[in-house]
């Protein structure tokens, strides 16, 4: 009886130990599988999130440029400085699920296609890629992602070309033609007054096409026997498609000219 009890106890201990070892092996295998699945899941999510962060930055550069164009008219005599001011940087950081991310972007106006520049699949074709006539931006975005601050991590850098459908070169050229025509038209006046200026300008609108699409304003002032004419031209293009909806953009130019006056000096009435 005593031996049987000892034997049963030993068998029981062996059976439970075997069960425990088998379960531990299975548990470890399932745990390794879970870690592998979670690891690959995070990698898939990080890889999917990166292009969206890049797209957000490309969109942001277009939105900022659109806002700038809408609120700042372009002086066609200072076009280069105006376009150079189309630049910006942005840092975006956050957390989606357990993925921490940061996206650092810089963008600026460019007049040449970048060697590594390409489009963005999240940006519609009308704003995507380099345009030979449009207002082009070069966007550089660096993305860093990590899972709960550790591995797996994901880093990438993209350089993209996007553009707004406005034509700064062509608009500036038209504006300069309009300015030249206004200067020419106002260089000689029958008299140094607003009537003469308006008369000259009204004949000027029948001139080159550029002047007809521009509004012209001018004033004449006589000072110390010299007739100084201040003039400006401006053109506002409305309904330009933008990433934040249609917008308008104004191009202007101004100058001043000493006009020659052809009227004879008015004789003062002689004293009786």
């Amino acid at each position, binding site marked *: 009886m005593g031996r049987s009890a000892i034997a049963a*106890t030993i068998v029981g201990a062996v059976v439970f*130990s075997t069960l*425990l070892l088998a379960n531990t092996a299975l548990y470890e295998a399932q745990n390794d599988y879970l870690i592998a699945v979670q690891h690959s899941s995070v990698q*898939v999510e990080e890889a*999917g999130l990166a292009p969206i962060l890049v797209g*957000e930055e490309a*969109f942001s550069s277009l939105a900022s440029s659109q806002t700038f164009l809408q609120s700042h008219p372009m002086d066609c005599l200072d076009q280069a400085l105006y376009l150079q001011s189309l630049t910006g940087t942005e840092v975006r950081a956050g957390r989606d*699920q357990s993925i921490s991310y940061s996206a650092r972007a810089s963008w600026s106006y460019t007049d040449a296609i970048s060697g590594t520049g390409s489009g963005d699949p999240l940006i519609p074709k009308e704003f995507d890629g380099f345009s030979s006539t449009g207002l082009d931006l070069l966007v550089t975005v660096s993305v860093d992602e990590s899972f709960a601050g550790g591995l797996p991590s994901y880093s990438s850098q993209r350089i993209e070309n996007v553009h707004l459908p406005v034509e700064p070169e062509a608009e500036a050229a038209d504006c300069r033609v309009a300015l030249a025509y206004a200067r020419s038209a106002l260089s000689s006046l029958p008299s140094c007054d607003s009537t003469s200026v308006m008369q000259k300008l009204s004949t000027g609108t029948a001139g080159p096409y550029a002047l007809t699409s521009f509004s012209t304003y001018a004033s004449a002032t006589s000072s110390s026997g010299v007739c100084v004419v201040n003039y400006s031209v401006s053109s506002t293009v409305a309904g330009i498609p933008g990433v934040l909806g249609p917008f308008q953009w104004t191009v202007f130019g101004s100058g001043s000219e000493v006009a020659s006056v052809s009227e004879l000096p008015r004789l003062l009435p002689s004293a009786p």
Partner: protein
Amino acid sequence: MLDIGTAAGWALLCLALLSTMSPYSARVGSVIATADVRSGEAVFHYVNSVGLVFLANAPPDLVCASLLGHSNSTVALGGVVEGVRCSPPPTSFNGTFSLEVSLGGRELTLQGWAEAR
């Protein structure tokens, strides 16, 4: 008598370890992780399909309708557009994914809920 007590104690310890180290919980975890990925892929696919200009400018109800249109029998899409919640999450799902998008001052939260396959 002492042997039986020791064996019984060992058996109880083994049973306790067996119940805590259940392979089932790890299997459930991997099912959830896979469903999370499917939710994320559905959200990414949606953003790629509609584009960022649509998400930035479309009225909230139109965004919600498009999210609903991209849902299917195993993955539901929803979200919050400018504080407007599109639709409540489904009653039953295994995995979820949430994406915050900021576009020209508009904040969107796009969410996906996937059932296990």
